[in-house]
C-alpha cells in the first residue's frame, strides 16, 4: 500500500462537491503566556482565502501553540484571532467549523473508517441519506475506497493519516489545520503525501494552516511560509522569498544551508551593497542599507564558486578560506571551509565540474552578485 503511487493528476478528478472555498484568517498581536513564560509573543498575520500557509519553526518556537489557539483549544492571553472577519473570542472549538489533522492522526479507535469519517457529519446533523455519498467522496479523494469496514488499528500509518484527512474535509470546512501531519511517516510516504495533500487542498480551495519543523516540507507544500522563532514571527513570505531573500540571520539559518558573513557596509550602489568582511569583500543585493551600517550577507552553498591559489574568478566578491574537508554527496560535493576568522563555510560543487581541491588548500570563494543578499543587522 505504501509503495503505490498516491497522486493522481488533478485533471482526472471530477468537479468535487467537497469544495467549499477558503476562509481568511487574521491574527492581531496574538500573545500566549504561561505564567512567566511567553509561548507566543505578539504575532500578527493575514492569511487570504485559499492559501496554503505553513507555520515553520523549531520546537518551542510557538508554532503549535499558535495553531491550537486558532483551533480554539487554548485561548490567547492577548490579541485577537479572526476567521472570515469574525472574532473567535469566546467561540468554542466545536462551533468554529474547522477541519483538523492531528500529529498522531487521533482516529477514534472504537469506530471503523466509515464511522470515523461520518463523525463530523453526524455532529452537523447531515441527513442520513446524504452522508453516504459525502463519505464515499471523501474516502475516494484520499484513495481509500473499500476500506470502510476496517478499524483504525488495522491500517498502516499512511492509511490512518489519509482517513484523518478524509475526516477533516468531509464536513467541507473552509479552514483546514494540520499539526505536523506527516511527522510520524517514513520519508517516501511523506513525500508522496505532501503532493497529495497539496493537490487536494488546491482542488477544494480550502485555506490550510500547516505546522511543521521540516523546512523541506514547508518549501514543497506552501504558498506562504510563516517562520517562527521564540514565539515571534521572523519572516512571512513565499518559499522563494524565504529561501532566496531571508530577511535576517534566523531565517537564513533555518531555511537551508547558508554561508553568513558579517561586516560593515562600505560602498552602496543602486540596490547593491559591498561589505567588508574578514578575509575579503562581499558584494550582494540589498536595499535600505547605508554606508557604515553593520551588515549581514547570506550566500547559499550552491552559488559559491571556488578557485585555488593563482587562478582567477570573475565575481566581484572574493573571500579567502581554507578547505577543511570534501564530502561526496551524490549529485554534488560538499566542500567544508574555514574562513579567516575561523567560521565554518560551505560550498556545493556539482560532481560533473572539474575538481582538484584537497584539505589544507587555500581558496578564494566568490558568487554572482545576484545570489547574495545583504541585510542591515538591526539594533538587536
Amino acid at each position: 500500500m505504501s509503495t503505490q503511487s498516491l497522486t493522481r493528476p488533478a485533471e482526472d478528478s471530477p468537479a468535487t462537491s467537497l469544495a467549499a472555498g477558503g476562509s481568511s484568517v487574521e491574527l492581531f498581536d496574538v500573545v500566549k503566556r504561561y505564567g512567566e513564560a511567553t509561548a507566543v509573543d505578539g504575532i500578527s498575520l493575514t492569511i487570504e482565502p485559499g492559501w496554503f500557509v505553513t507555520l515553520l519553526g523549531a520546537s518551542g518556537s510557538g508554532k503549535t501553540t499558535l495553531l491550537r489557539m486558532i483551533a480554539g483549544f487554548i485561548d490567547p492571553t492577548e490579541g485577537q484571532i479572526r476567521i472570515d472577519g469574525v472574532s473567535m473570542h469566546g467561540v468554542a472549538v466545536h462551533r468554529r467549523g474547522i477541519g483538523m489533522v492531528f500529529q498522531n492522526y487521533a482516529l477514534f479507535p472504537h469506530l471503523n473508517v466509515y464511522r470515523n469519517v461520518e463523525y463530523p457529519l453526524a455532529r452537523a446533523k447531515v441527513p442520513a441519506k446524504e452522508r453516504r455519498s459525502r463519505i464515499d467522496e471523501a474516502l475516494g479523494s484520499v484513495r481509500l475506497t473499500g476500506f470502510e469496514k476496517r478499524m483504525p488499528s488495522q491500517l498502516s500509518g499512511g492509511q490512518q493519516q489519509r482517513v484523518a484527512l478524509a475526516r477533516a474535509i468531509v464536513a467541507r470546512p473552509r479552514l483546514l489545520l494540520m499539526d505536523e501531519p506527516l511527522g510520524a511517516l517514513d520519508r517516501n510516504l511523506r513525500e508522496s503525501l505532501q503532493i497529495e495533500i497539496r493537490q487536494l487542498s488546491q482542488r477544494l480551495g480550502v485555506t490550510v494552516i500547516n505546522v511543521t519543523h521540516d523546512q523541506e516540507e514547508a518549501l514543497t507544500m506552501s504558498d506562504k511560509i510563516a517562520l517562527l522563532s521564540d514565539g515571534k514571527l521572523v519572516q512571512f513570505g513565499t518559499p522563494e522569498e524565504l529561501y532566496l531573500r531571508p530577511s535576517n540571520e534566523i531565517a537564513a539559518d533555518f531555511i537551508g544551508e547558508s554561508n553568513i558573513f558579517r561586516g560593515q557596509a562600505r560602498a552602496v550602489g543602486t540596490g547593491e551593497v559591498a561589505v567588508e568582511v574578514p578575509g575579503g569583500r562581499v558584494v550582494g543585493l540589498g536595499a535600505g542599507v547605508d554606508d557604515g551600517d553593520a551588515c549581514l550577507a547570506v550566500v547559499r552553498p550552491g552559488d559559491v564558486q571556488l578557485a585555488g591559489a593563482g587562478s582567477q574568478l570573475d565575481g566581484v566578491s572574493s573571500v579567502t578560506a581554507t578547505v577543511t574537508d570534501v564530502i561526496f554527496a551524490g549529485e554534488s560535493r560538499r566542500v567544508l571551509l574555514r574562513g579567516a576568522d575561523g567560521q565554518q563555510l560551505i560550498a556545493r560543487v556539482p560532481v560533473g565540474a572539474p575538481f582538484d581541491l584537497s584539505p589544507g588548500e587555500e581558496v578564494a570563494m566568490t558568487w554572482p552578485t545576484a545570489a547574495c543578499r545583504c541585510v542591515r543587522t538591526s539594533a538587536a
Partner: protein
Amino acid sequence: MRPRFGVTALAILMAVIFLFPTIVVVVTSFGSGRIVSFPPQGWSLRWYAEVFTDTMWVQAFGNSFAVGILAAALAMAVGSALAIGATRTKIFPASLVTGIAMSPVVVPGVVLSVGVYMVAVRTDLTGSVIGLALAHAAVGVPFVFINVLARLATLDKQIEEAARICGADEMTTLRTVTLPIVAPSVVIGGVLAFISSWDEFMVASFMNSPTFRTIPVVVWGEVISGADPSTSAASTLITVISILFLALAAGLPRLRNRKVAP
C-alpha cells in the same frame, strides 16, 4: 536466568497451599454425610439441593445479588465520573478527587461499619437493600476509579480534541468518544466492585436484620455456630460466581476485538 529447581519446587508447593482451601470447600460441598469432612465419606449433590430450596439461602443469595448489582452500577457511575473528572476538569484538584475516590481502600471495614451503622440506624436504612448498596457502592468505587484512570492515562488527548473540532460539544464528546473508549475498563471495574460487595461481610453484618441477610452474613452465622456441608455448597457457589464474573470481564476486551474484526 531461570529459577533453580529447588526454588521452583518451593513456589509450586506454595501454589498448592494457596489453592488448597478453595479445593477443600468445593470437595466437601459434594459430600453425602451430615458432617463436613475432608475427604468426604460419600458423594452427593444433596447439599446443593438444600441450598437451592432452603428459603434462608435463597433469600440471602437474592439479597446479595440485588445489593451487588446495585452497588456495582452505582460504583461504575461514580468511579468513572471521578476518574474522568480528575483528568478532564480542574474544578476540584486532581489529588483531592483521587484521595476521595481511594479513601475506601484506606479506611478499615470495621471503622466504616461503625460509621455506617450509626448513620443507618438514624435514617432507618438498616436491613434494606438500598442502605447496604449505598455503602457497598462507595467501597467499590476505587476498583472502577483505578481501572478507568489507567485507561485514560493511555488515551491520547488528541482523540477527544479531534471530536471537538469535528463539531462535538463537551458532553457529546464524552458520550460518543470518551465513554465508549473507557467502557471495557468501566465494566471490569464494575465486576470487581460487584465481587467486593458480594464478598463483603463487615458492613453487611452491621446492616443486617432478621429479614435481611446477605450470603456472607449467613455463612458467618453457620461457621460460628457449626457448619454443615450446605455451608460448603453455598461457599462454593459464592466462589464460582465470583470467578465466573471475573473470567467474563477478563474475556470482554478480546470479545470486543473479535467482534470488530472483519
